[in-house]
């Protein structure tokens, strides 16, 4: 087992997917996907629904088998869920019968931390995500935004080397989402890990990420990879008007839509991306 010294691993590759293929019946959900995440970097995967971005995340989380290719997490071949990874789920994945406190403590408890360590870390992350005063409430008693704060705290609490986030803010309203972006970046600055962030929002991807991978659907392939040329720390309300932000957004947008003739995004979008997936392999 290789040790990870936080920033010290930044030159290594945290995740390497090579030729990852996943089929449901005859349909290829993922078709020879290559993807790497640099240690300590924040990578977003974006693409139309059905492009397999969530499936890719589930593969790296060890929740889904693959039909071909290889996934390495810190140079170790993946066999099922790994304690190196923690997942933040789209629907929060909180246990409704546990208080927010016990939800945050969950990973620490099952991973065999001592009682004192569980208490100390749980308290710390409760504070860090701003749940103090609500920690004894149950998930059904608080807003979606607060539930996902608990989801974030639970994932960060186990000090993962790789954090996998599956459209974690898709279900909350726009204002809450912006504040959660800021929270996530703040926490991530202090508890650096490699992040794979799946989203369907171009803005969200740019605001948060170092790198962005754009995927196409039917079959799920990597179309392009971008590096976000914006310095950190970032403030969402400031960077959204910067030329670097707007030009990158335009570029990704046109990549996602470039054969879509005037239809609304959605099904027609998918069909367009599907039909040109073969020629869509961009550098």
């Amino acid at each position, binding site marked *: 087992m290789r040790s990870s010294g936080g920033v010290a691993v930044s030159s290594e590759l945290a995740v390497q997917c090579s030729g990852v293929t996943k089929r449901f019946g005859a349909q290829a959900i993922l078709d020879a996907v290559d993807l790497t995440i640099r240690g300590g970097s924040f990578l977003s995967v974006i693409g139309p629904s059905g492009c397999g971005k969530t499936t890719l995340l589930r593969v790296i*989380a*060890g*929740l889904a088998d693959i039909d071909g290719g290889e996934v390495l997490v810190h140079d170790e071949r993946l066999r*099922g*869920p*790994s*304690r190196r*990874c*923690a*997942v933040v*789920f789209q*629907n929060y*994945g909180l*246990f*409704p*019968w*546990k208080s927010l406190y016990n939800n945050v403590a*969950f*990973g620490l*408890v*099952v*991973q065999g931390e001592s009682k004192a360590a569980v208490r100390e870390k749980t308290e710390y992350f409760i504070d860090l995500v701003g749940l103090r005063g609500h920690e004894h409430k*149950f*998930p*059904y008693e608080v807003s979606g935004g607060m539930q996902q704060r608990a989801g974030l705290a639970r994932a960060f609490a*186990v000090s993962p080397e790789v954090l996998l986030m599956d459209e974690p803010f898709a279900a909350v309203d726009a204002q809450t989402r912006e504040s959660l972006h800021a929270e996530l970046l703040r926490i991530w600055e202090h508890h650096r890990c490699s992040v794979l962030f799946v989203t369907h929002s171009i803005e969200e991807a740019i605001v948060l990420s170092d790198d962005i991978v754009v995927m196409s659907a039917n079959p799920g392939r990597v179309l392009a990879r971008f590096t976000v040329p914006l310095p950190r720390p970032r403030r969402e309300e400031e960077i959204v008007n910067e030329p670097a932000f707007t030009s990158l957004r335009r570029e990704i947008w046109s990549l996602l839509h470039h054969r879509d003739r005037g239809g609304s995004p959605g099904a027609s979008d998918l069909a367009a991306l599907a039909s040109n997936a073969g020629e869509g392999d961009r550098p």
Partner: protein
Amino acid sequence: MSGVASERAAKVGKGVASMAHPERAEGQAVDPRPPNGAGSRLSRRHAKWLVRAGAIAAFLVAWQVYGEHVNAILLVPPTAIVGQFGTMLRDGVLLNALGASLEALVIGFGGGLVAGVTLGVIWARFAVVDWAIQPFVSALWSTPLIALVPLYVLWFGFGLLAQVMIIASFTFFPILLNTYQGASSVDQALLEVARTYGCTNWQTWKHVTIPSAIPYILAGLNVAIGHALTGMIIAEFYTNAVGLGGIVLKSADTFQTARMFVPIVTLMLLGIVTIGSTRRLKSRFAKWSTLSEQK
């Protein structure tokens, strides 16, 4: 009618006033409403209890009037039952019988509960057990358990053991089936959460499967208590005649109708108490569940 008219007048007045004198409008708007709203809510709750009490009173009065005019062997009025209740309470007969019944009930119910939950969990956990157990469960579930009671007496005699076994059997099935259903209908997404945090099998059961089965088990408890009370009385009919069922049987045999009604009323009260306590259990342990909101 005048109420409606004055309310409309108040509304119009408020509309006009709020244009000219905001502070006066506020006074008008705030004053009448809260008492009104609170009052209607309160009176609705009161109305519910009034109707309830009224229905019970009407029933008792009708019973009283009718009961006084029929053969006392067939039916006695409530006052006679209350009198008899007092007598049996004073001479200790009722409490002795209740104690004997409750002893069998508690042991039998506890045993049936533990066995039902345990087997339900094992059933849900191991596919092999599922395959093996299914025909037996179907056969026993569709068999009226009462048909087995004479057999139990043959096996376990006329004493406490037979009573306990009968009550346990009556308790067992609703608990077993609900536990199985609860433990096998766990949210797949939450099982995945457990997997990603590296839960062992046992940890998954402790943190995910069992907690998510608890609302089902509590719902089963409700049904099981009814079954257990039935089992308790049937057991007493077939075994030695102590306990509440024994009084019913002996009193009926000797045409002491008022005396027969006393344990029946006691059973009703027992039912109300136990159902009430399972409801409290639900609000304590399954507050989070939508399942518990159905009742």
